[in-house]
């Protein structure tokens, strides 16, 4: 009885009584969600275009951030470092296409999936070898990212919003917008969609898959870089971030592997759900439930809608 | 050996009973069926055959009657032979691949009332010629599939007969006694089987053999090769061929060894490998095909492996045969051979299924020295024998340790050989046939007054080895217009020893020079074409291809060279040749069922080509009728090119036949 109360009533009572806290929680959930979305976005881009379930996306985030900071620490001016990092991400995309995707073309998904594991291990080793394993501080100021916080008064309390988070939200939405434009308007973008629909079709309209793949991985790299900067600015840069890559998986399930809007919305649902759960129900179970709550949400969701939020129903034919 | 002196066992049924006593629980027969080797011991076989015999008896099979056996090597067909013999009736095996015509002829000539057949295919074939075999009353079949809807008034499964027989035996005790009496009263002088020779010329003749003689002959060879109940042979050659009946059936009965039947013709090679026979017979053609396959497969092997293979095969060529013949061999030779045996010969024999072979024979055609030596060099105890259906196979054979590729061996124990002044070989043997079935005339023709049989083969005894050498069919040995002795087969064989040449027909009797018509070997030349990216659509394309002609031309040049070396043969160098547009085929009557060339027939069938060969024209048109496997007929026509050959100077003296 008491427990039932704790689970089903108490949290909502709390929400009602302290709406400002609720808002705070929602906001933090939103921000976390945005970052999940960005990583999920990287996944989706690659999965759409090359059918590869890119486990390395999370690591690419860390790797990008690490490179950026690392370069700066070696005395490279911030924006130059940024530029170089972009270059590095391109190099990475290129190398991946050459050394991993091309030799493995037409292999079953699971094999490509495994290959990205290999990539993960490589990037971790490489990153730490070059820039050292110890955590680093993101060079937010040098990149002219705002710091400090807004205090918004509402519901008789106030909600604290880190400026960096606001920036993150804005940049994220800009990037999504940019990608949308990229997909809809540019030739390459259309090519990408063609590839996503059917590789053969793409080839028939004379698009080189290799080229496409490089582009996609590069795009994913850029997304990763942005994510890295944002996330790095909130906590700091180390391979502990790796875990957030796994956070993106339930997002993908909610959103569907191939839907960009899905990734966004899924990310936010997970982010918010997680924070709410942690904040209001967490204490019941002892904290830290956010490590798995997302998955349970996703799993339950799957049982009712196996094809995800935006995926379309598959009719099996024989 | 104890087993040959079979006291009182002068017929196959008696021997079967003896075997059930001595070897009771030893395997008599194995058959790869339903994926595993089904096995029957001698006891079981006896029991089945008795039941079968009784069943047949109840169907009205009477002593002295003939029963046709049509099909492949299957236990139930072997049992049919046994059961029929048990009733004192005469089994008449017929080649399973015989076309309806031949089948009809044999069944009619042997006036069979019953026929035990393998499957629907044979049933259909026989039904299709039913009116030509009026006496045929009833058929028994082994394989049920597809026959269910047939009119069963004169058709029944062998299984049912056996079951019926069993029931009968179980119900009335008297039957068993009656059967025993039947068997006991069987006489060795009674005919035990009629084997229809696939006559090299004209229609086939029914060779009548008696139990006693057959067993005597078999006993001799069993002793000669020391075969025992521990041996095993794979019965994969036509049931109706004297070879199978002798080597597997008769020898099996006498020595008590196990006869294994392959699952089907496609799996024969694999089955051979599984069962690993200790006694093996293969006609030269089979060995040839096998060797060609080996060489082709090795072509695809990696560089090092290929080198390794050829190196050690070379080693084997040098020492293998002597080692097999237990002749002194330098230690280093033994050493290298040992390594080769580990790396190549052993594995090779293993993949070919020869690992356990103790005695292997080849016969029926002359064997190429290379071919013959290859198998011996890798340690397969391959020997040659010379024989005839009329002799119940053996006339001469090569004893262990006295092996020569160009002889057919010593006169066989208890055989007497005489050679006429015109070179024909005559013999008298224990297994000698009783005569041709319903054909006294023919019988008289081949018998000399003093009871020798004319083989129709020309040959002579080699001074240094004391072995018989066969050069050709006596009647085929002719003379060129310049008087040179001309044995076509001798030349043909020299040609056929090249893997690329499958069949050859040499012409020259009463002509100015020797010319040949050839068949290329599609497997060998085909893969050669692949390697040299020569494109071709059909045998005909390939046969007509200039590059192929060039290749063959080289072979013939070599043959000419070797001919030139031999004084007697130098005159026989080949001056012109052509490659036939189609493969010679038994279904078209160009070859016998045992794949021997039918000269006369070919001579008029390809008359236009032959004319062209001698009137100096560069090419000639030919169209021939062909029979497809399902019996339909069609016509192939083509324009065949002809090539001239350089010949080497002929030594002055021209000899005469040895």
């Amino acid at each position, binding site marked *: 009885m008491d427990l039932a109360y704790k689970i089903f009533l108490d949290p909502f009572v709390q929400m009602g009584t302290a709406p400002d806290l609720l808002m705070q929680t929602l906001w933090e959930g939103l921000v976390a969600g945005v970052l999940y979305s960005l990583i999920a976005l990287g996944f989706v881009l690659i999965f759409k275009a090359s059918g590869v379930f890119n486990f390395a996306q999370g690591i690419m985030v860390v790797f990008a951030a690490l490179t950026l900071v690392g370069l700066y620490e070696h005395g490279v001016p911030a924006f130059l470092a940024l530029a170089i990092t972009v270059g590095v991400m391109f190099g990475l995309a290129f190398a991946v296409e050459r050394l991993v995707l091309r030799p493995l073309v037409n292999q079953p998904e699971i094999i490509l999936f*495994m290959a990205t594991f290999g990539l993960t291990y490589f990037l*971790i080793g490489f990153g730490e070898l070059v820039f050292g394993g110890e955590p680093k501080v993101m060079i937010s100021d040098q990149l002219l990212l705002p710091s400090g916080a807004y205090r918004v008064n509402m519901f008789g309390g106030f909600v604290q919003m880190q400026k960096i988070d606001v920036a993150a939200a804005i940049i994220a939405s800009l990037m999504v917008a940019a990608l949308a434009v990229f997909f809809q308007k540019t030739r390459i973008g259309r090519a990408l969609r063609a590839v996503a629909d059917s590789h053969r079709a793409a080839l028939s309209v004379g698009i080189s898959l290799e080229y496409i793949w490089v582009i996609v991985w590069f795009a994913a790299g850029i997304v990763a870089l942005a994510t890295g900067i944002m996330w790095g600015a909130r906590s700091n840069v180390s391979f502990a971030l790796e875990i957030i890559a796994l956070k993106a*998986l339930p997002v993908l399930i909610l959103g569907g592997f191939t839907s960009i809007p899905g990734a966004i919305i899924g990310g936010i649902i997970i982010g918010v759900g997680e924070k709410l759960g942690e904040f209001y129900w967490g204490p019941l179970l*002892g904290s830290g*439930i956010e490590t798995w709550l997302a998955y349970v949400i996703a799993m339950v969701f799957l049982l009712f809608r196996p094809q995800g939020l935006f995926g379309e129903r598959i009719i099996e034919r024989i | 050996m104890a087993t040959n002196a079979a006291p009182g066992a002068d017929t196959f049924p008696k021997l079967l009973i003896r075997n059930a006593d001595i070897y009771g629980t030893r395997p008599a027969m194995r058959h790869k069926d339903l994926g595993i080797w089904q096995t029957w011991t001698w006891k079981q076989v006896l029991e089945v055959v008795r039941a079968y015999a009784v069943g047949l008896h109840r169907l009205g099979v009477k002593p002295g009657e003939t029963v046709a056996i049509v099909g492949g090597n299957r236990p139930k067909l072997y049992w049919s032979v046994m059961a029929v013999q048990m009733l004192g009736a005469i089994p008449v095996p017929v080649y399973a691949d015989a076309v309806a015509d031949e089948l009809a002829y044999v069944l009619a000539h042997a006036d069979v009332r019953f026929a035990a057949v393998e499957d629907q295919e044979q049933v259909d074939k026989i039904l299709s010629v039913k009116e030509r075999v009026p006496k045929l009353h009833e058929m028994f079949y082994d394989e049920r599939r597809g026959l269910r809807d047939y009119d069963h008034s004169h058709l029944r499964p062998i299984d049912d007969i056996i079951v019926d027989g069993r029931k009968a035996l179980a119900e009335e005790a008297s039957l068993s006694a009656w059967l025993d009496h039947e068997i006991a009263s069987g006489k060795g002088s009674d005919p035990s089987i009629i084997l229809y020779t696939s006559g090299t010329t004209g229609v086939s003749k029914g060779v009548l053999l008696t139990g006693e003689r057959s067993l005597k002959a078999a006993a001799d060879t069993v002793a000669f090769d020391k075969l025992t109940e521990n041996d095993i042979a794979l019965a994969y050659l036509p049931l109706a061929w004297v070879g199978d009946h002798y080597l597997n059936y008769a020898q099996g009965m006498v020595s008590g060894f196990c006869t294994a039947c392959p699952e089907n013709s496609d799996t024969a090679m694999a089955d051979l490998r599984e069962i690993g026979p200790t006694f093996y017979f293969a006609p030269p053609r089979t060995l040839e095909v096998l060797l060609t396959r080996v060489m082709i497969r*090795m072509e695809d092997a990696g560089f090092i492996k290929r080198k390794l293979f050829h190196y050690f095969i070379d080693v084997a060529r040098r020492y293998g045969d002597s080692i097999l013949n237990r002749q002194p061999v330098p230690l280093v030779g033994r050493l290298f051979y040992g390594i080769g045996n580990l790396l190549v010969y052993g594995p090779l024999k*293993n993949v070919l299924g020869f690992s356990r072979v103790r005695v292997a024979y080849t016969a029926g055609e002359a064997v190429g020295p290379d071919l013959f030596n290859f198998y011996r060099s890798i340690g397969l105890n391959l020997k040659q024998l010379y024989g005839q259906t009329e002799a119940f196979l053996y006339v001469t054979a090569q004893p262990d340790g006295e092996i020569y590729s160009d002889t057919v061996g010593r006169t066989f124990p208890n055989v007497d050989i005489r050679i006429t002044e015109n070179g024909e070989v005559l013999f008298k043997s224990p297994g000698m046939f009783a005569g041709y079935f319903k054909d006294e005339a023919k019988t008289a023709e081949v018998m000399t007054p003093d009871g020798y049989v004319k083989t129709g083969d020309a040959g002579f005894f080699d001074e240094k080895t004391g072995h018989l050498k066969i050069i050709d069919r006596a009647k085929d040995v002719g003379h060129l217009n310049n008087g040179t002795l001309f044995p076509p087969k001798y030349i043909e064989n020299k040609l056929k020893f090249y893997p690329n040449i499958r069949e050859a027909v040499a012409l020259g009797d009463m002509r100015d020079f020797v010319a040949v018509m050839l068949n290329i070997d599609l497997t060998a030349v085909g893969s050669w074409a692949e390697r040299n990216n020569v494109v071709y659509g059909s045998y005909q394309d390939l046969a007509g291809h200039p590059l192929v002609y060039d290749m063959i031309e080289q072979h013939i040049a070599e043959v000419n060279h070797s001919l030139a070396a031999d004084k007697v043969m130098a005159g026989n160098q080949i001056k012109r040749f052509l490659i036939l547009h189609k493969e010679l085929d038994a279904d078209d009557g160009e070859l016998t069922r045992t794949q021997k060339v039918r000269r006369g027939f070919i001579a008029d069938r390809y008359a236009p080509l032959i004319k062209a060969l001698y009137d100096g024209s560069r090419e000639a048109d030919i169209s021939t009728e062909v029979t497809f496997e399902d019996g339909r007929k069609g016509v192939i026509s083509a324009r065949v090119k002809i090539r001239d050959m350089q010949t080497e100077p002929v030594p002055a003296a021209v000899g005469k036949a040895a």
Partner: protein
Amino acid sequence: MFYREVGQFKTSYAADQALFPILQDKIGILLILTIAFIVVPLVATGFVIDSIITPVLVLSLAAIGLNLLIGYTGLLSLGTGGFMGVGAYACYKLATFFSGVDIIILVICSGFFAAAVGTLFGLPSLRIKGFYLAVATLAAQFFLSWCFIRIPWLYNYNVSASIEVPTRTLFGIPVTGPTATPVTRYLIVLTIVTVMTWIASNLIRGRVGRTWMAVRDMDIAAELIGIRLLPTKLLAFAVSSFYCGVAGAMMAFFWLGNAESESFSINQSFLVLFMVIIGGLGSLLGSFLGAALIWGLPIVMRNAPVVLGIPVTAATMEHITSMTLGVLIIFFLIAEPNGLARLWQIGKQKLRVWPFPY
């Protein structure tokens, strides 16, 4: 080349379907077993056994478990570590409650707990496939590792927050805990692994295995020949988790001696997954080869510089190892996507048809 199969014919289906129908293989396996059971204990040092051989055996068992799921039933799972953990903790609790019961029995029993949990988390497999399922199993992984940390009861409220394996004896000989010798622990592990591998091979060659593979290759057709998908998949999950559970329990009791939640983290899952993929999907042998490679490689890497006398800091070595591991995984996937088992198969076939190339 060394195969001499002539005359090895089968006269019964039993013989035809034997585990090792070819004589030479029988000899080979007997040789391996004698080496494993007799030679190794005599010659191998405690260090080698504890740091290489025992771990490889334990992980092989886990890999077999996962392989039954992925390789034979086609269900992708990333929860292996979690299921191993269940085994370990279950065994620990059992050991605490039934201190009298033979430890080996407890190890086996703990498999059943893992099986139960595995089956539970296998339920979604009816509705979802492929990567979606993989992610679902991740839920299991994270939930379980969370439990291992957050539920002190599981580790008896030890301050170390980890399993501390008590000393247990078998016929008076200590088999677990600090006093147990590496060799004793090795022999027990070896025995269990051998038996369970044999059982696995029996399962996959029989009806059960065929239904699994049928579901893997074409679930629709499987359904239409009367195979019920859910029970089949759940059975696969159960058996798979059982194997993982036992492996986990052995890991804690016979190898590490004490284990905290880290040992059963997501990384463990990935490691085992590598072993299965690199070793070869759908091959028991592959599971062993994969385990040996993935486990052995870093050890070799780490010790190489020491042996060669190259001065490298441990940290740097770690990084390099991780890099090389990554590269090697990719390399192997490119070289032979079907894994080491396939390489072995090809080699064997070559030997069988020697001197022919095919």
